């Protein structure tokens, strides 16, 4: 894992991703001198791969508590919000909406925030990690509740 590679690769990857997007491709793979890069679009929600993908847990009848992770259940209850401007959890942990129990929450829906403002905390292994706003904007939706466990990449809040 040489670090020099990382820098130079990401440039290439960015460029390939642009091409993918521009040319409206599904997948793109380049291999050259020991380096291989593949970029692909997420499978569109319409296509046959869904049908072809058996869902053992759902089909299999009485599995205890169904093989769906808790958070998937949760978001399943309400119509999925537009997550394009969502701030995602940078880590696995427990999310807190206020600095300490009983204190005021960092932000409410409708609040204006600046880039770098703390939106919430994620606690993992006894350390509290601030989740900062990536941009100036308005908090249009808070997607999690206080003290809820979150996984990596889980949308927490929408700032648009």
């Amino acid at each position, binding site marked *: 894992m040489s670090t020099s590679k990382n820098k130079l690769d990401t440039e290439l990857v960015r460029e390939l991703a642009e091409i993918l997007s521009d040319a409206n491709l599904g997948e793109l793979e380049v291999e050259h001198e020991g380096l291989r890069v593949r970029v692909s679009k997420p499978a569109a929600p319409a296509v046959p791969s869904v049908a072809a993908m058996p869902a053992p847990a759902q089909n299999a009848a009485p599995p205890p508590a169904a093989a769906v992770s808790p958070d998937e259940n949760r978001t399943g209850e309400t119509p999925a919000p537009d997550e394009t401007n969502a701030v995602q959890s940078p880590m696995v942990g427990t999310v807190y909406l206020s600095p300490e129990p009983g204190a005021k929450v960092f932000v409410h829906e409708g609040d204006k925030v600046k880039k770098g403002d703390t939106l919430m905390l994620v606690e993992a292994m006894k350390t509290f990690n601030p989740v900062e706003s990536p941009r100036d904007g308005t908090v249009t939706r808070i997607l999690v509740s206080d003290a809820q466990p979150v*996984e990596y990449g889980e949308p927490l809040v929408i700032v648009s």
Partner: protein
Amino acid sequence: MIEKVLIANRGEIALRIHRACKEMGIATVAVHSEADRYAMAVRLADESVCIGPPPSAQSYLKKSQIIAAAEITGADAIHPGYGFLSENAQFAEMVGAHGLVFIGPKPEHIRIMGDKIAAKQAMIDAGVPVVPGSDGGVETVSAAKKAAKKIGYPVLIKAAAGGGGRGMKVARTDKELENAVRTAKTEAKAAFGDDAVYIEKYLERPRHIEIQVISDAHGNVCHLWERDCSIQRRHQKVFEEAPSPALNQAQRDDIGMIVARAVEKMGYLGAGTMEFLYEDGQFYFIEMNTRLQVEHPVTEMITGIDIVREQIRIADGAKLSFSQDEVMLVGHAIECRINAENPRSFVPSPGMITDFHPPGGPDVRLDSAAYAGYRIPPHYDSLIGKLIVHGRTRNECVMRLRRALQEMVVGGVETTLDLHRDLLEQKDIIDGDYDIHWLERFLADD
């Protein structure tokens, strides 16, 4: 009492652990990277937690994220599988420090066995035969020459911190030795951040034979016979069988008891494997793997023992569910590792598995997390399944394996199924007459 296990791994071994848990009434938590969202173990587990982006360093090797996942799901034990963090003593310690059970050996044994020089010394102390070599590392070229003279050429130069064959050099003369030591030190420094190297006798045509052991916290130790894993390519095992066609029952009993006694003396806990080179009736210890092995199912098929189940029971403080006398050896088993790779160039072939049809019928086992419609991510190793077949005799096993290989279909990606079909037609394989270089010779000749 273990009631919920977090599986800190992916692919077929994550599914294997999930299966053992479900069969014990234990709930499972699958952790996964973003690339493994649709992995079979994730789909089947009771709960799942995404722990990071696709690169292993940011997900499956991220200790803090795995422990955080155990905390938010209320898991009370972690099974590390093989690879990733399975032989990371620091991780095992962290797991314990967070009040969780690590399903594996004690950190100190992981640590000793992770250092090849310390491991060898521990084995010498425990009465296990080792490869003649330098007693400890060689600092200089002249020290290396002196050691080589004592051992006798050819010799092998190995990195103390190495593994999987990396950083190994053969030398047949003093002159070759000079270069080999210098290169090995440089490479070891670059690869492992540690330039310590040591020297061993180089065996010309050895077999790779390993002994499975398992011990509980109550002083009970059993060996579960050997596996012959000589069919390797670039030090990666391809095809494994038990029992070894090269051993007779007396040899098997002897080495098994030597290993069991050594493990007992160490106070080792859980499942482990002592790997040996075997040549001309002699065993030479090479390393001990302090974890579950990829090829554990061949042992399961000849003994009827579920090794993963025993690991979990042992971690939970239970006694081994059998004594040495009760360990059966029935028939013969062979495992073929099926990789998503070109069967001759071994170039990985990630992508969508369009068709997936496993073989069925008597005494055929497939351990695979693949399914039709599954997309093999390009970020990890290319193992997509293990086909393990049992027969009452080795011949029955070989014949059954052949027909099973003919039934199996994996469409959409290249696989090493064709390599295995070829292997099963080779006289040496049919006769069990091979050494650790056999496969490389076969591939070179072809």
